[in-house]
């Protein structure tokens, strides 16, 4: 009965209660949804990192990771690959020779990580083969002498890109509604080549004016970038025998993973091409990257790999990229602080509302105590009212958040046009799929109830301390 009276009391002053409920709804919604967006970002970062960079498990010579030195190899890797592949949770194993070196073209030079790979095995483990840019060739599909696949970022550094607006590019740009206004102007740049991004940007701002150019240049650049395939890249590095080795490769593919740091550093060549240059023996690699069917089995499979390759250093993805684990745990911490601030503000709103509700009901409360409602019951009645008030808003807020998280979680929030470059520089995808775990939801419910209870204490104590004979005398 107390429950039902409390619930009915919440609705005595409908407008006032609704204001508090709406405030709670928005507060909770704002907090939860923002956290879900951040979780979505981290989630995609981790997935991207596992899919393109770290894989689930990596095996190295125990000394390799200290200095990334070529000499610390896994020998006769073929012996292990078959055994590892027999573990049912393993999707693929990719052996890699990893060499820090220098890549140079006629235009520029850059420090790089040379990945000597078994092309077919690499396809099973990373998504690089599916990340080739448009007009960026292929992932070792053409035969030919010493092919090399590099990231778009590195291609820019090595001056293997240029900008040219073709008729086809204009066509594609005309599909974007907001671009249509500037298309006729762009026509005057058609088929002109610009060697560097800076030159192209200058031409654009000359044509469109500075502010317009800033607004549209991202899409125009993305549509009109062209790649100089088949160009020569010379790789130089210290080979196993201590000499500086170098060899020339031809660019046949350009990829883009969404992490521009990775794209600027990593290039891929065939293992068979690099082994002799590096003075390695056949069967010597620096790394085995293992992809699993699901992330849940990582620790278990890592143990099995340790048994297969005793003495080798076996790491799971969260050890390879401790920052990924850090993101998740700091985000939990932020969520906590963030929600506490929101709830604190909402909590004071509730105290105010409930205090009003108590003060305008002094006479009624006095009557209830006179006829025999004890202090404990009066206290719980006011407590319940307060908690109901908060919980109603919280439940609605959570329902809206859950619905929107579910919806945008499946369609994705596209922030491409906002901050793509910024996101990619940090290794995040601009396509965000908001997500939130049940633990966080339960944590939140707990926090909301706690806020309601804490906010209720003062008004409820005030009600409890009333003296019935005095309260009854008050003229309302």
């Amino acid at each position, binding site marked *: 009965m107390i429950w039902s009276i409390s619930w009915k009391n919440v609705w005595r002053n409908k407008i006032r209660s609704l204001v508090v409920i709406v405030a709670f709804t928005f507060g909770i919604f704002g907090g939860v949804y923002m956290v879900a967006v951040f979780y979505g970002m981290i989630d995609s970062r981790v997935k991207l990192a596992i899919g393109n960079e770290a894989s689930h498990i990596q095996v190295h010579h125990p000394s390799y990771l200290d200095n990334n030195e070529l000499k610390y190899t896994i020998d006769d890797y073929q012996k292990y690959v078959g055994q590892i592949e027999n573990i049912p949770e393993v999707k693929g194993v990719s052996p890699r020779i990893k060499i820090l070196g220098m890549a140079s073209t006629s235009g520029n030079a850059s420090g790089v990580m040379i990945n000597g790979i078994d092309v077919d095995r690499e396809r099973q483990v990373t998504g690089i083969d599916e990340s080739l840019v448009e007009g960026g060739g292929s992932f070792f599909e053409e035969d030919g002498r010493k092919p090399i696949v590099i990231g778009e970022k590195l291609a820019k550094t090595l001056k293997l890109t240029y900008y040219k607006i073709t008729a086809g590019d204009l066509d594609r740009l005309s599909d974007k509604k907001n671009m249509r206004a500037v298309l006729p102007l762009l026509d005057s740049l058609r088929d002109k080549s610009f060697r560097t991004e800076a030159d192209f940007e200058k031409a654009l701002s000359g044509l469109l004016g500075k502010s317009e150019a800033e607004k549209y240049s991202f899409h125009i650049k993305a549509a009109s970038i062209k790649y100089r395939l088949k160009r020569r890249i010379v790789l130089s590095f210290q080979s196993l025998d201590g000499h500086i080795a170098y060899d020339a490769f031809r660019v046949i593919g350009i990829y883009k993973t969404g992490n521009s740091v990775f794209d600027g550093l990593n290039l891929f060549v065939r293992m068979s091409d690099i082994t002799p240059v590096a003075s390695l023996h056949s069967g010597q690699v620096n790394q085995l990257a293992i992809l699993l069917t699901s992330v849940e089995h990582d620790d278990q499979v890592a143990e099995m790999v340790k048994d297969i390759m005793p003495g080798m250093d076996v790491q799971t993805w969260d050890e390879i990229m401790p920052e990924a684990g850090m993101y998740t745990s700091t985000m939990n911490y932020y969520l906590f602080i963030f929600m506490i601030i929101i709830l604190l503000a909402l909590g004071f709103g509730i105290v105010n509302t409930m205090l009003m509700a108590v003060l305008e009901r002094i006479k009624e409360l006095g009557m209830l105590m006179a006829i025999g409602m004890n*202090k404990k019951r009066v206290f719980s009645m006011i407590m319940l009212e307060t908690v109901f008030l908060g919980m109603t808003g919280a439940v609605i807020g959570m329902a809206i958040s859950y619905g929107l998280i579910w919806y945008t979680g499946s369609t994705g929030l596209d922030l491409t046009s906002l901050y793509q470059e910024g996101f990619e520089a940090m290794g995040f995808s601009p396509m965000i799929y908001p997500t939130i775990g049940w633990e966080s939801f339960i944590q939140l419910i707990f926090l909301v109830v706690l806020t309601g209870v804490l906010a209720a204490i003062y008004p409820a104590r005030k009600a409890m301390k009333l003296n019935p004979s005095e309260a009854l005398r008050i003229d309302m």
Partner: protein
Amino acid sequence: MIMKVIEIENLEKIYNESEIKVHAIRGIDLSFEEGEFAAIVGPSGSGKTTLLNMLGGLDNPSKGKITIGGVDISSLKSSELINFRLSNIGFVFQAYNLIPVLTAKENVEFIMHLQGKSKTERDARTKELLESVGLGDRLDSRPSKLSGGQQQRVAVARALASKPKFVLADEPTANLDTEATENLLDIMEKLNREENITFIFATHDARVMKKARRVITIEDGKVLSDEIK
């Protein structure tokens, strides 16, 4: 032998508000028997509400003793006093004071809820009481949908719900017109006879005094006369 329900011995009440001491009750000795229908009358400020509050355990006497059903209520702790009120005393207030969010039935039931009575018992008693105050057809109406007279009848039903030893009614007819007053008094008298419950009114309404079988007149905190009709 007729049971004494209430015994008041040498009762005094002094309010110590700020510097001024107000001697509201200056030594009253009274007793009430089972089944009385009594009115305490007197001009405003005579002390009748103060006396009623002390009888109801809402206020503590400064001196003297009130014994209800053999229990000295000034010896009870405040939590014990609330439970004592719950099972021994019914209250009817001038301003009805029903719970606005509850229906007539729920208002009457509420007190039995506090007593922890079973649902069947509550339902039966509620229906019986509301029928006897003539509101058997308004069980599900909220107070705002009832007239003042009807609300006060619900309040009477509520006061009787706990089967108290006596009912204290402070100016119960002050807000009612003559017809509603007659009606209410008839109902209370009927319940007084049927359930043998003592009714004590504080009033200066002549209609109530006419109906009462005992009229106690108070002035300046003292009993001026005690007349049994």
